């Protein structure tokens, strides 16, 4: 049998920019930034965040405590509806590959505070909730999936990496379908962590801007429902988009800082282009990682200038969603597909002035794009870099 390619049967996205794809497009069209000033928990830290206000699905009681899981299920249900899938045929193999950060850690402060006072005192509900809410495991359980499963914890590139892994599974014949993307909730521990690193801005973030002062945290989920093209043919279903290329590479440089020249991202992008057999000039636009931290945007801008010598429109959508950590790669892959589908990309919210240390600038205002291929890029703690190439099919 011919080796399968990776069709995208449906997409779903929930973030502060919108509770689904349609409302997200509306926010992008009107350049609306839904910045929250109040945190959903008590904290001495004050900063803007991007929170989801949409109603989330109620899950069985054993799983309902995980907001990350509920965000993921919200996006998954939209992706299934988008692909006109009510439920999966039990004869098919369904893989689940999800990126996250917060949902991977036992970070219940009330539990740990009580434990420190008296180890025998706290109940174990928080521990049980954590054990049950491994995202890939829980989603697989809710779907009755019998294919491969993986929860990826590659920090901020997790969602993009999850799409790459799921695409490998499909090409390798390990499953017919794959649920791929990322989900993360707003969390006090992550907030304190990024604050401690000194990379958070007290103002709404300004990716790639001269005066960028750091990131804002966000929450959300972005899910792609991937299908083997051979399976889609058997169902006599066409697809308008596919995952044409993916690349992942390490900086091997530093635990938290990107390589100054972005050597890992450079390799990841070139690998994705090579896998898709697509020249840089064919890329219609890039949905850049663009966190608005000094180091990230400088390294990423250098790579974009180097790989795309003749120029390419690019945008950071974190001005609309904040940095959603493990969800970012999933959300931004969905936004990339939406850009190709709509034929335009939004202005890079927060960007005003070109930076001296970045040789390129993102689009300031909504702009029309032409072409059939686009990239979404991610950089992460640990020097991980990933790029996924989405293609509109004829």
């Amino acid at each position: 049998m011919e080796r399968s390619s990776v069709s995208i049967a449906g997409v779903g996205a929930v973030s502060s920019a919108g509770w689904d794809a349609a409302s997200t497009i509306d926010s992008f069209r009107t350049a609306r930034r839904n910045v929250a000033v109040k945190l959903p928990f008590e904290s001495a830290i004050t900063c803007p965040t991007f929170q989801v206000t949409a109603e989330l699905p109620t899950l069985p009681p054993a799983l309902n405590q995980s907001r990350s899981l509920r965000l993921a299920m919200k996006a998954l249900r939209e992706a299934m509806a988008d692909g006109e899938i009510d439920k999966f045929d039990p004869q098919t193999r369904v893989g689940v590959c999800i990126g996250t950060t917060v949902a991977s850690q036992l970070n219940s402060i009330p539990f740990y505070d009580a434990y420190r006072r008296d180890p025998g005192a706290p109940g174990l509900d928080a521990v049980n909730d954590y054990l049950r809410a491994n995202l890939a495991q829980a989603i697989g359980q809710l779907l009755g999936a019998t294919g491969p499963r993986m929860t990826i914890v590659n920090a901020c590139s997790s969602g993009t990496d999850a799409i790459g892994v799921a695409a490998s599974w499909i090409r390798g014949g390990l499953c017919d379908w794959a649920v791929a993307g990322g989900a993360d909730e707003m969390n006090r521990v992550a907030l304190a962590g990024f604050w401690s690193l000194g990379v958070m801005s007290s103002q709404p973030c300004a990716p790639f801007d001269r005066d960028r002062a750091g990131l804002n945290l966000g929450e959300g989920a972005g899910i792609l429902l991937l299908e083997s093209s051979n399976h889609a043919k058997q169902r006599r279903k066409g697809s308008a988009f596919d995952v044409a290329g993916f690349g992942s590479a390490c900086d091997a440089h530093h635990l938290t800082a990107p390589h100054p020249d972005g050597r890992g991202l450079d390799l990841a992008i070139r690998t994705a282009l090579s896998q898709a057999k697509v020249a840089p000039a064919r890329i219609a636009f890039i949905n850049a990682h663009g966190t608005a931290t000094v180091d990230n945007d400088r390294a990423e801008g250098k790579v974009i200038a180097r790989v795309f010598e003749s120029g390419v429109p690019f945008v950071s959508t974190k001005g609309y969603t904040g940095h959603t950590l493990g969800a970012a790669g999933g959300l931004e892959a969905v936004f990339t597909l939406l850009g190709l589908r709509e034929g335009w990309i939004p202005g890079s919210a927060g960007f005003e002035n070109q930076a001296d240390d970045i040789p390129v600038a993102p689009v300031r205002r909504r702009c029309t794009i032409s072409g059939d291929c686009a990239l979404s890029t991610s950089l992460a703690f640990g020097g991980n870099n990933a790029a996924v190439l989405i293609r509109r099919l004829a």
Partner: protein
Amino acid sequence: MTARRASILGVGAVTPLGRDLPAIQEQLERPAPASSGVLRVNDDFLPGPALSRRMRRADRFARMAAVAASDCWIGAPSACEGIARQRIGLIVSSGFGPHCRGFRFLDGILDCGDAEALPTDFSHSVHGAAAAYITEVLELRGPSLTTTDFEIGFEQAILLAQCWLEEGVCDRVLVGAVEEIGDVLIHCASRLLGKEGFVPGEGAVFLMLGPADDGGFAHLEATALPADLDLMMLDVPAIPSPAVQKPAAVARHTTTFSPYFGHTASSSAFQLLGGMLAIRAGRPLGRIIQSASTADASSVAVDKAATFKPSCDPLASSLLLTKR
């Protein structure tokens, strides 16, 4: 699904029995030591002098992972000869990740406030910290993944490594599992699982995998439960349930290495380590818990050995080792 397998080109491990593989093998030939309640990795095994400066801020979790990965690399010097670093992938699986450092960060929040906790505790509490150290120390520039799963993370990591090799994403994949045991986890495990027969453990196991025709001492394959095995390795103190009677029935001998390494969320990695050493020794090792024949276990050659774990993915519930 396409059948696929990889060659094992190198092995590195740090366990409660140490990190020298021949010495671990010797200890697996003897009865398991009496349990002291928790099987920890002795700090003397961590880390080697070559690693110490680069890893001066690293915690035990990252050190265990980096030591096992480095031993795997150093122990198979020809395995990656002539292969570009960007063609070598890394997959690190763990159930609980660096949770001890995570709790240290929570100590900072509780003792000093949200705005005053230490950045080094936060950056090291992230699951991918160990992989970051490994890529830096070994200068790996290919794809790097850290995954978390409480049941089948290592099986899925092996499956993906095979997929990468078959697809040509990488020429080599360094794949491993690492688990650390801390006071909070010990406390929770004893309350959730009970104390009888359960001995928490920790450590790290790494394998260097290459395509099936690239040498090595054994083939490895994530697969459905195989038939006709010399040795089945199970993470149980005995065979208490029908769920494990079925896999035990396909093997001449069933053994467990848990009394030596302890129980972890990545137990298959440690069972596999015991299985690899049994193949190298040519005879069953560990605590034999069931035999299909009356023949002395030590007289049975071990050419095929497998782990088994009931899984949502029945086509990857076993890790099958086949001697070359």
